């Protein structure tokens, strides 16, 4: 997805460079289509792809207004209006899982941005190429480890009986007895965010490193001539240089705030912490699909999608206004 965002931003950048003839509206449009026919042809497959996989399935949303039963044909389904939504908004558990979802995705958003950017900028300052490359490779390897395995690793590391974290803290005399990290609900968000950072920092940094490579070397040379030190260069050239990339990714991620999936939570949770670990998608799975209430599940995901779209447009609008950056 990140890569897609980059190419998209690249395309918009190119287009804004091309001067458009201020011709009459209608004919001008067709003229530019003709002029850029190869570009249009190139994007066609992707438009079709998006249409098939992102728009066609929306028709399944109708399920949310039915009491859907599998196998029966569409005309045999019973329509129930807004009953599913009414039930959803009356369930206390829904607000609890919404809180968890927002809390964990906000944490993910904050740390998922700051840490990889810092990491990328610092990695960029390294001189030794061999060292730099190996650090980069090692740091993004965890990205390819599945959450099932990461879940096991986290449990083993944080165990009270032989877990390395507790052993270390005990050895350093920071604590007197092992902390039950995985049994306390209030630790869950922190544990999850930390695991996520460990897993994804290296991978997310790649995109910023790529953006940094795109910065004109002459800028650095000019700065050096003007007497700017490394720290000054970092703040005045590197960070502003990747600003566009950061903004685009930020807006896109805000759009995903409520739809964070449930894989990490599913792998890390246990019965003791469900009040803090259950997220919207997990709730949809448990109270929707698992007990055969497909309509209810659809209502939840419909809610998620609508909120996502609203968030995306709000974030985009705000950025446009205050930071003069946007993706639309």
């Amino acid at each position, binding site marked *: 997805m990140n890569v897609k965002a980059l190419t998209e931003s690249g395309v918009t950048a190119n287009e804004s460079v091309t001067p458009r003839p201020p011709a009459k509206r209608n004919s001008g449009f067709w003229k530019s289509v003709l002029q850029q026919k*190869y570009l249009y*042809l*190139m994007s066609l*497959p992707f438009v079709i*792809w998006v249409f098939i996989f992102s728009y066609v399935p929306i028709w399944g949303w109708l399920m949310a207004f039915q*009491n859907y*039963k*599998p*196998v029966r044909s569409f005309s045999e389904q019973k329509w129930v209006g807004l009953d599913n939504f009414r039930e959803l908004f009356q369930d206390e*558990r829904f607000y609890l899982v919404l809180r968890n979802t927002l809390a964990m995705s906000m944490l993910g958003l904050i740390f998922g941005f700051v840490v990889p950017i810092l990491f990328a900028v610092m990695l960029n300052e390294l001189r030794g190429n061999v060292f730099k490359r190996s650090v980069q490779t090692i740091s993004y390897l965890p990205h390819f480890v599945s959450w099932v395995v990461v*879940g*096991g690793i986290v*449990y*083993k590391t944080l*165990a*009270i*009986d*032989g877990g390395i974290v507790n052993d270390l803290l005990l050895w350093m005399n920071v604590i007197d007895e*092992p902390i*039950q990290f*995985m*049994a306390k609900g209030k630790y869950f968000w922190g544990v999850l965010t930390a695991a996520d950072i460990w897993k994804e920092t290296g991978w997310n940094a790649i995109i910023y490193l790529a953006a940094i490579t795109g910065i004109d070397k002459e800028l650095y040379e000019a700065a050096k001539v003007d007497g700017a030190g490394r720290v000054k260069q970092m703040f005045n050239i590197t960070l502003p240089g990747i600003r566009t990339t950061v903004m685009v990714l930020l807006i896109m991620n805000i759009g995903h705030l409520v739809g964070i999936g449930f894989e990490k939570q599913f792998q890390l949770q*246990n*019965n*003791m912490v*469900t*009040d803090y670990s259950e997220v919207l998608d997990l709730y949809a*799975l*448990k*109270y929707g*699909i*698992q*007990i*055969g*209430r*497909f309509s209810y599940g659809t209502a939840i995901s419909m809610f998620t999608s609508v909120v996502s779209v609203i968030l995306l447009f709000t974030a985009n609008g705000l950025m446009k206004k205050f930071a003069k950056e946007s993706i639309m």
Partner: protein
Amino acid sequence: MNRKSTKTIFTLLLMSSMLIAGCGGNGNNAANNTTPNNSGTTPDATAAADDTALDTSPATFTFFGADASPNWNKMQDDVGKAITEKTGVTLEAEFDVGSGGGDQKIAMMAASGDVPDIIFAKGSLSTLVDAGLIIDMTDLIDKYGPNLKKVYGENMNRLKYSLDDQSIYQIPTNMGVGQKSFDATGGFEIQHRVLKELGYPKVRTVADFEKVLKDYVKLHPETDGQPTIPLTLNADDWKIMITVTNPAFTTTGAPDDGEYYVDPETFEAKLHYKRAEEKEYFRWLNGMYNQGLLDKDTFVQKDDQYKAKVASGRVLGLISQEWEYSDGENALKAAGKDEYTYGHFPVTLTEEYKDHSFMQTGIDGYGIAITTAAKDPERIIKWLDWMSSDEGQVLRTWGIKDKHYTVDANGKREVLPEIRDGLANDTANTQKTTGIGQYLIFGARYGDGVKDSTDNYYTTSFPEQIVASYSEAEKESLAGYKATTWKDLFPKEDEFPVKETGALYNLPVPTDGKYQVIFKKTQDIVRKRIPEAILSKPADFDKVYDAFLAELDKAGAQDMEKEFTELVKKRVSLWTGKNL
């Protein structure tokens, strides 16, 4: 110009190749998705020739089992090959992974209608039935199932689904008909080394159990260099029921009716946590935790961590069923550490209660169902019928003559010593190569203690066999208690009447409406609050437990109990003809 057009052509080429690749990928996916449906087709449809004769032409059926089956060897084991040779049938089987249960997988099947030919759906059968995906086997059994009819005999009534829908959707196969257990595999467990060192103390109540663990851990705070764990339980997902919540009713003299307690006279059902006796059981666990006897990791650890602990030999006591912890115990056996394996005791809260483990439920179990995806249900029934014949049953439980068992001059079957040894000490590998015990759910079968026409037992577990499979450490412990099997310590079948309600954890419940939602909610509450109550300070226990009960009712438990009571009454009238 020239350069530009070359570039364009190149781009277009690349693009179209991507497009083609994309389509190719989709095409493959579509093909993959439809295969399970197609593979049910028998290559040649000449089956209809004779009704009773067994068609042995090659046929492949797809299958899903809701229990994990890690030793499944794709029918490439000895028994599997024999089955294919005799019947022509090969199963393309898939089993649930992890801790099993199959709920999620089966819910997806019900949604998509994409089911295998044969399914072992356990508790999720009703989901499939309500989706109209399971076929009624009544007529098929009548026509093609002489052996099935023989095995179930007068119990055919009990195969019916419900009072309102008297179809036969599954044949119960995860239990043996007429089963008389020879050995106890549940109750409370204590390691043999503990029993031996403490001179075989009396273990009858939870207080005795507690004392044994406490005394031993004082003597040996470490096992093989690691801290000794007096007691640990497995609370991962549904296993919390096996080791944490179910023992609450077994120790207080109630039979296993799943999450409910059903009054045997009035058939009124209530969530079993509401019984005052059970609160006392959980209070005892709370005490165990606060004394440091219950492992602190109990409610956090995952299934594999629990098994690893059992396999390390440092857990003195368990409260579980042998099948639940056997993976860990088998590792101990394989390593020759028999003194670290476990004996079983019918522990109850106080002496006034009796362990109801051996109360008979009659025929009532999870089983095999045929789906609408099956192209040739007749062939499947015939196959299941063959599997249920004497020949099939002996093959499934004993294996192959002269390879796995021998018949002596008096016609007595005996398992070869190396196979018996392998099954006891190197279970996984032996099961993978021989296939013994891998096909038990595929067909009706008699239970332990039933003899066939040759005067041999149908199953390999009969008193002598069981004693023969005990390790030295186990025999020593039993001798210490003047018993030959663990069952000798337990209350016997004939001390209880046969349950008129059957095993109520099998009772099909409505899949739509409020019931499922309330049930799910109460389950969430149980799995959260029971650990909380056990881990609370002793002074807070009452407060937490009472709040837990109030929360259950707030979630609608009473409506659900009322609905369940109705279902129980209907089942009793269907099975016994009583008018309730």
